[in-house]
């Protein structure tokens, strides 16, 4: 009799542990799905869905459930939604985050609370430096890196006097810090505009005309990018003062900018035509499924899912093995759209940065192509402030 009870018990325990091994992988994904920036969030969600298609909707044999949450472009809402994902839905991973200020507000609700946090876009300096954490990973870049590359490009082009415009929030400040760090000429003017409220740049453009610099560099993500470029052209500056940008022209606003963006130069870690095996499949299937070019936001989101998959696979779906999953993610041994790369000690990619140019493809659609490599295996400058080593 006793033996029978023991037998049943051990069978039950075995069953339970079996079940816990086949636990569903729960992923929270916080992005902006409504308002003017909602198009970016939709693009990221589309990329996540494509990644899941490519994985057969399973990770290491386990089912996957993604909870999409809308931060409505507001740090307070982003934090609220993040808390809900962690406390109520009990997700294992929280990904997404377009905006640096939303990420900064949400960070403490995830790291140290159990789940891993993976930024699919935002890369503010603090989380790469002093606030780096063993449970935080990035599949994008640190904010300053892209514009540091732009500073190098401007040096190579012989630009002496530069005028900078960016929105006044965490990422804007990082982007400006980046280009200021590497650009060797004079910065003859700088405007930090109210974000996201200010959409009319007439006053700033008038200042640019009066200063008459050699070149203008801007960082205006999303819908703001569309506006600054339109207004730059309406002010008659387009053919007068060369215009360089970062994260301003993307595959969402290019079909609307068309000729206004033609020939525009920008720096980025990725481009739709980047020659890696994974990127070819990603861009081709994305275009087939959604009928448009993916944005860099989409590429990073695709990588987020692939990174999570590599972690879950490494521990055979045992989601309690956080150390195992962390070790797997640190290896960055997943098929990334940017090709193979290594993680720095702060869990930010050490990767290449390219100069991209707006061109027309063979069907007449506007897209961007790689012109040249600016940085090879570049690590962000905040990594040295990160105490973590592994």
């Amino acid at each position, binding site marked *: 009799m006793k033996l029978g009870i023991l037998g049943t018990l051990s069978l039950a325990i075995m069953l339970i542990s079996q079940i816990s091994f086949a636990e569903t992988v729960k992923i929270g994904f916080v992005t902006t799905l*409504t308002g003017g920036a909602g198009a970016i969030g939709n693009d990221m969600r589309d990329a996540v869905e494509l990644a899941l298609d490519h994985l057969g909707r399973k990770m290491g044999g386990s089912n996957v459930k993604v909870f999409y949450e809308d931060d409505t472009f507001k740090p307070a809402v982003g934090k609220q939604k993040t808390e809900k994902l962690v406390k109520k839905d009990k997700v294992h991973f929280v990904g997404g985050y377009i905006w640096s200020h939303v990420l900064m507000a949400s960070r403490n609700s995830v790291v140290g609370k159990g789940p891993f946090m993976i930024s699919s876009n935002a890369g503010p300096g603090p989380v790469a430096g002093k606030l780096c954490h063993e449970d935080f990973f990035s599949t994008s870049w640190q904010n300053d890196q892209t514009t540091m590359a732009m500073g190098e490009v401007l040096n190579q082009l012989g630009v002496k006097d530069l005028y900078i415009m960016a929105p006044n929030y965490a990422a804007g400040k990082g982007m400006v810090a980046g280009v200021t760090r590497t650009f060797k000429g004079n910065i003859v003017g700088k405007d930090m*505009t*109210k974000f996201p409220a200010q959409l009319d740049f007439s006053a700033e453009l008038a200042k640019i005309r009066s200063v008459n610099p050699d070149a203008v560099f801007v960082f205006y993500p999303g819908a703001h990018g569309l506006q600054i470029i339109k207004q730059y052209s*309406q002010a*008659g500056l387009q053919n007068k003062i060369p215009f360089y940008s970062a994260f301003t022209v993307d595959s969402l606003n290019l079909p609307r900018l068309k000729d206004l963006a033609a020939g525009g130069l920008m720096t980025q870690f990725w481009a739709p035509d980047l020659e890696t095996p994974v990127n070819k499949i990603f861009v081709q299937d994305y275009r087939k499924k959604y009928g448009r070019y993916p944005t860099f936001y989409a590429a990073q989101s695709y990588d987020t899912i692939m990174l999570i998959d590599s972690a879950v696979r490494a521990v055979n779906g045992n989601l309690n093995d956080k150390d195992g999953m962390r070790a797997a993610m640190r290896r960055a041994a997943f098929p990334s759209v940017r090709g193979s790369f290594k993680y720095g000690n702060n869990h930010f990619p050490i990767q290449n940065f390219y100069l991209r140019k707006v061109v027309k493809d063979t069907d007449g659609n506007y897209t961007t192509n790689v012109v040249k490599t600016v940085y090879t295996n570049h690590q962000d400058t905040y990594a040295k402030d990160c105490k973590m080593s592994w």
Partner: protein
Amino acid sequence: MNWILLLEQTLNGFQLGILLFLLAAGLTLIFGIMDLINLAHGSLYMMGAYFAATFTQWTDSFILGALLALPACMLFGIILEKIALRTLYTRSHLDQVLATFGLILFLNEFVRLIWGPIGLDIPLPQMLSGSVELFFGIHYPAFRLVIIAVGILVAFLLYLLVSKTKVGMLIRAGASNRQMVSALGININLLYTVVFGLGAVLAGLAGLMAGPIMTVEIGMGEGILIITFVVIVIGGVGSIRGAFVAALIVGFIDTVGRSFLPDILGIFVSNDIADTAAPAISSMLIYILMALILAIKPQGLFPPKGA
């Protein structure tokens, strides 16, 4: 200081002021005459831009598109008034705020259903899409000049309408003393519909002129609505003249503040602090102005007579 830059910034401030005036004129009339706080006024601005974008696509001409969008806005405003807002006149202001806030959400979703989540663009005709050289080597975007011209024309027409016609007389009377107007046997419902329709056209006009500069997108009217409220508070609720003067003041202060504050602050504090503080302070300027004016003249600069 550079005089050409100052002149150009003055024009920019004027242009922003004109857009604000078009919104504020309607809002101040609706508030002053109908005693209705209409938070959804910014949605009418958005509808104007969406109508113009659609009609511009159909007709291939921005001017035709804009001309078609104006009656569409009026019709939309009148339908909105008849269906949704009429029931709110006798309710408290808090109920009106709640209901019209709901209307903002409804109209945002309505636009998403019809036009999709990604915004639209209004392409300008070639002659308006560049900049022109004015006197003393001042370059100015042609379309922004058109906005200023249209705004001044509309302000003049509104002046004629309000001060020289019978409808205008009723509007003025309504702003001063609503009860008396209805006691005298005026069809106040009809007057309300006319006023709301007029407000909708003005808001739509502002929206369709802002569309080509910025983009036509969901929620585009919400930010500008807050500044519009500042304008009508400064100008005096119910006063078109007040709205005009206040809109120009607010437009000027906002633009010039944004442009010169970093340099001015840079004289007193280090550049780093000035860079960070200037955007914050310049976006506060108009609210500081509003607080000052409320302290000195609680009714605003030009309160309607008898109010």
